[in-house]
């Protein structure tokens, strides 16, 4: 699907949202204008990062709770943009996956430009039992493959979840790692292996 069609779909979806009270609307647009006035680029963090994309606009306008039909439509959109590996293989190397999951580096104005960056996974999730310093913004992923299985469907679910968490849950707190080009195909495969490979410490 081309970008123009996509954008217009997002916009029309945004219009389906219940209109907020007049006062709220004013503060929101005033706040956005203020942000644009009051921020400056630094390092790799350019000011265009302040612009909402269509999905962010829908989540922001609905306090992260858009009407179900809107959410479903936009999730489908996000899913349609997921690129699955051409070789059809989704399981990489869990050891490398563990390293990617550990790193929180990337995309701040003190980070160097360019890739690869870290996955930040431990900032939000419990994963391998050996790492006891883990965040709790997301659910525990310990024993993920053991509990949920590791067949083709589950592999595809995990790959697409990491690639674009919003394809499954529109206003999720989890970033869209593949969608924004933060993690590449090989890295995502390694992370899928970390969660699903039965030899991974996650599933021991």
């Amino acid at each position, binding site marked *: 699907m081309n970008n123009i069609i996509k954008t217009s779909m997002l916009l029309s979806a945004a219009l389906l949202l219940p209109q907020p009270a007049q*006062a709220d609307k004013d*503060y*929101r647009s*005033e*706040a*956005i204008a*203020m*942000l644009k*006035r*009051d*921020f*400056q*680029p*630094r390092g790799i*963090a*350019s*000011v265009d*990062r*302040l*612009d*909402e994309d269509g*999905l*962010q606009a829908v*989540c*922001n306008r609905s*306090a992260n709770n858009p009407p179900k039909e809107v959410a479903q439509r936009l999730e489908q959109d996000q899913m349609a943009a997921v690129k699955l590996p051409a070789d059809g293989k989704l399981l990489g190397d869990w050891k490398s996956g563990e390293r990617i999951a*550990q790193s*929180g*580096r*990337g*995309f*701040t*104005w*003190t*980070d160097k430009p360019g890739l690869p960056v870290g996955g*930040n996974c*431990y*900032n*939000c999730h419990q994963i391998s039992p050996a*790492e*006891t*310093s*883990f*965040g*709790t*913004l997301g659910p525990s992923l310990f024993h993920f493959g053991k509990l949920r299985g590791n067949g083709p469907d589950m592999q595809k679910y995990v790959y697409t979840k990491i690639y674009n968490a*919003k394809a499954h849950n529109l206003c999720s*707190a989890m*970033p*869209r790692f593949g969608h*924004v080009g*933060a993690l590449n195909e090989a890295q995502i495969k390694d992370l899928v292996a970390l969660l699903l490979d039965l030899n991974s410490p996650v599933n021991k």
Partner: protein
Amino acid sequence: MMKPLLVLGAVVGTLSCGAVLAQQVVNKPAPPKKAVTKQEAAKSTKDATTAEFEKFREVLEADSPAELFEAKGEDIWKNKRGPDGGSMAQCDLGLGAGVVRGAYVQMPRYFADADKVMDAERRVVHCMTRYLGYQEADIRKQPFSNEQNTPDHVSVVTYVASQSRGMAVAVPQKHPREREAYELGKAVFAYRAGPYDFSCETCHGDDGKRIRMQQLPNLAKKEDAMKSFQGWPGYRMTGGFMLTQQWRMNDCFRQQRFPEPKYLSDAVTTLLTYLTVNANGNVYKGPGVKR
């Protein structure tokens, strides 16, 4: 009010080390490294944090580090020490010319002379440039402290803050501009954007969450909101300098993968208005210590 004991002056803030979403390099040799193993820490973050601070408490109490900056700031405020030899006697922090006591817990507020809502740091810089001959451009060159230097305005903010020790936060919401600042700050707090779709709320909008081992206060909630105020300005143990709320906002925008907020801008003031009004009624214990 009596000058509090050094010991009581040091408010122990949240401890956190190592990998935040964005890792930071700390050059200076830090006070003793992790006092507890990761496994112990996992059992109970609170206990681990407390335990770690207990190890430092003696050192902190013997030599309350924030106190040094309070004294330096007081000196600048009282002793005509600015480049022009001017005086802060005319500086109005909201309670009248020259009145410092109680002012810190009542900012941000609307200042008619500037026709702006200003937070404490913004107001202090305003007065230092107006009455002491400091140049705003110079201050902007190094707004925040680092290992080499804690700038004068940060010491003055620390002094001003110390003069509200033991007082309840009471940020006014009478003036329409003050109410507007609150609403704008609230909107900024919830605004998701950037490569990771983060807003302040993504990390600070729920109860009892953590990033790694760092507790995330739910800043929209009255009980937690005081965490945005308590212990600030804070002495950074891992570097030996004072950091202000302006710095905290700056660094959280960095973690949010946003571009940088301009120093002393409305975006930061409105956010501080939102956070501090949410904290109204809680007692401020004075400048503190942060990791």
